[in-house]
């Protein structure tokens, strides 16, 4: 019971909020976080896409190792890792069961493993990149490479609103609990309680949407007064805003290092095969 309580504390709405914020903003001091966003975009361009077209096991395994290291370097919250593993395992497990039911056998394991490997490489690349850039950096980076200002602003503002939204959602959720009736019996495998909680979890979104709509009015007026739409047409403002971005030796080392490693992998892959 005590263990369940502790777990509940972790997965409570508050807990989720804290994990989310930490994932978004909490990793500002790692090596990767100090890279220029454009470096990370370039890097992601290769590691996020290339694995789809690679079928060589040695290459994939090598990339997997590299990305496992970069993921660790970006100090991701354990929650994200757990979610990743769950996703990969359930995906692979489900495919294996399906193929086995439809006449596949031991020989299906290998291709499935390969697919899982590809997926995990791509997922880890995404985690590395997006956990190393806080939303600010991400939005500035996108702006720099020519994504419209609304999109980049939306990312930054969305994250800034996140804690208040979660908090408000929590309050509404509690409002339901403070006035509602919980099922008197939990039912088999707690199904009654689960249905009850799922129901209010969904219902709580409606009041939330309405109250956000109301809040936004002040925000939009404030944006107007703070010259947001004025800056939209001003190249000057964009230049000043992004002037802090610079490629440094760090970026070069990172890109060159990764490049060399990949080249080495190709050499290895040409000589050995599994």
């Amino acid at each position, binding site marked *: 019971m005590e263990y369940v309580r502790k777990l509940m504390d972790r997965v409570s709405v*508050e*807990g989720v*909020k*804290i994990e989310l*914020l*930490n994932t978004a*903003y*909490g990793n500002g001091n790692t090596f990767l976080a100090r890279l220029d966003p454009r470096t990370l975009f370039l890097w992601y361009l290769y590691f996020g896409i290339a694995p789809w077209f690679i079928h060589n096991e040695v290459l994939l395994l090598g990339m997997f190792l590299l990305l496992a290291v970069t993921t660790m370097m970006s100090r991701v919250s354990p929650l994200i890792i757990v979610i990743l593993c769950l996703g990969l395992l359930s995906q692979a497990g489900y495919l294996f069961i399906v193929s086995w039911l439809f006449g596949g056998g031991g020989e299906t394991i290998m291709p499935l493993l390969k697919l899982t490997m590809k997926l995990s490489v791509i997922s880890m690349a995404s985690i590395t990149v997006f956990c190393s850039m806080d*939303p*600010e950096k991400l939005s500035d980076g996108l702006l720099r490479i020519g994504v419209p200002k609304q999109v980049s602003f939306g990312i*930054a*503002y969305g*994250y*800034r609103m996140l*804690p*208040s939204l979660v908090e*408000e959602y929590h*309050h*509404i959720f*509690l*409002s*339901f*609990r*403070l*006035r*509602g*009736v*919980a099922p008197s019996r939990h039912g088999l495998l707690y199904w009654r309680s689960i249905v009850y909680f799922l129901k209010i979890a969904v*219902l*709580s979104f409606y*009041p939330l949407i*309405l*109250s956000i709509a*109301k*809040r*936004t009015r*002040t*925000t939009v*007026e*404030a*944006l*107007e*007064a*703070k*010259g*947001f*739409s*004025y*800056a939209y047409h*001003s190249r*000057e*403002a964009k230049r*000043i*805003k992004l002037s802090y971005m610079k490629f440094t030796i760090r970026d070069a080392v990172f890109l060159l290092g990764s490049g060399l490693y990949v080249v080495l992998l190709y050499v290895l892959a040409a000589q050995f095969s599994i």
Partner: protein
Amino acid sequence: MYQDRTLLQEAETTEPDWIAMIDNVTFTYPGAEAPVLNGVSLQIKRGDFVAVIGGNGSGKSTLCKTLNGLIPHYYVGDFEGSVQVNGLQTLEHDVARLSRHVGYVYQDFENQLIRPTVLDDASFAPLNYGFEDYLERGQRALRLVDLTADPKEFIWQLSGGQKHQLALAGAVSLDPDILIIDEPVAQLDPRHARDIYELLRRLNEQHGKTIIVIEHHTEFIAEYCKQVVLMDQGRAVWSKPVEEALLELEQLRSSQIYPPQVTQAAAELAKIQERDSAGMDDREPNLGCFGLGLPHLASYPITLDEAAAYFQRLQQLEPLEPQKERSGLIGIAAGHVADAGAVAIKEASGISSIKDASNIAAVSGANAATGKAGMAGEGANCPERRVTSGNTEANTDVNTDANTDVDMGINADANTDAAPIIEAKHVRFSYRTVSRERKVVLRDVSATFRTGDLVALVGNNGAGKSSFMRLITGVTKPESGRIVVKGMDTAATAPEQLANTVTYIYQNPEEMFIEDSIRKDVEFFLKARRVEGYKEKVDAILESFGLTELQHRDGRLLSGGQQRRASLAIGVAMNPSVILLDEPTANLDIATRKDITRLLKQLNRHVETVIVATHDMQLVAEWANRIIVMHQGDIIRDGTRESVFGDAGLLEQAGLRAPQILELSRRLGMSPLSYTVDEFAQRWNESRKGAARHGVCT
């Protein structure tokens, strides 16, 4: 129109430096039927500190939005007339241009913070306007508003007061000449409220900013503002220097504005005495005395200092010695601040028996600091004197808050007999912050609540008030210690089940609206529990809260006062034994506040225990029969209002401020202290009559 013309004439003769000129402006919001501004004309002097007052819907905020161009550029309604700001016609310049002359801080300032970190937000506007040195400008703004938080701190880590400062920093970052602040103190505790006004004063006096506040609290207006504009039905009725404006008692009252308590007291006294002297011809020789004592309307005091001087002058006009001996109502008692315990006994003994009085003495003695326990004990040693003085009071103070006295009687009985409703024992509570540290909110809190307790939970922001109330509802569980509500341990009981006994009313009523109409919200609890005949019950409740007309409207779209009434109705419909209210009077104009206070006073007829967390010291003084002061997660005082408001050190420590009238009666050395204006007027008048009867004045 007449007033408008006089304003214009004044402009022609003296020609001051007007920073804003609003000329005959009429504005209708798109889709609305009636205009919000209806031919308003107003001038504002450069370097002035202006308060805009007026009832709900009088057009205060709309007026202010014409100054930074949001009207007519952003809200494209029907706009007539002209507005000139710092020499710019607002019709010809857009919001972006005008915003460099006018900074605006909203009432819901949290929504105005756009960027995630402190410095980022403060320098957002300079960046948008393309200033190369935007970071320095942001830093300068932060220094200007005295925000000492780490510039890299995330805004959700800031306290309410700091967020307000940051919103202000964002507004001053472009170095505008005019600053508009919509209800600066509505969401702040008393100490932060004063801090903000001190800050505004500095911006006004040292940096030459023209400050415009929309404000309901006349006590702040009297102390800080220079000029007052009264809005009514979309027009500026007048614009007057503050000393004149706050004495327009009739006009203020008809706009639901209440003058400072000290002004009310002086006016009240004048009225009583005018009535007395008019009605009693045989008192001819004394009239001179009354005339001397009460100068005419123009010189009522508006600030505490003025009031102290004003009433002291009156005191000096009539020696008080003989009457002090007679009734002990007004005495310039030395060191009276410390005699809280004794005062408590005296007041209570006005109605309770000696036994009850000693009970209270024991209670307040136990709760008070050691020095005070001595005082209380001293009181208990001489019961005869107490009874005499108590009787005198009972005879003379016919109209003083009888309610409170009765409540005190109940409290004294309850302390000995009834079973506790809520029992909190050594409760500790903490939560995880974003930086994954645990923040301790409650250290070791123990308290017992019984039937008849009307408890005010006070203390500055972050003292742990809300956390404590949430623990009682069962939505959060104590880390150690336990809370038992009517025999149910909250740690082992679901909040749904506790809800049959306890109701918690949120600080922000909007978070209680989970349905799309008030009626559905009120009936939610009853319907979920399939209560027989709930429809009739809901009808009755809606009626008694004046919501019948509004029952099919969405709660979110109501005005602040209506929302608050609706949230109370939702709570009462749950038919609880315990009702917990979080800041029930925050963000309300004074008239609505009075309305809510009235509803609160009715609550104890249905409910066994009411606990209110509040910054509103007038509410505390008028309503509560027990005050719990919290500070940094601990209860530092649990006692009567005498033991709290009589202890200046305690108030200072907890960041509280006594109501103005209480402070005045303290400065005048009145004993016992007066908690309401009526009480003050009554006591003062009685003492004067006493003095007059003895012919002191001849």
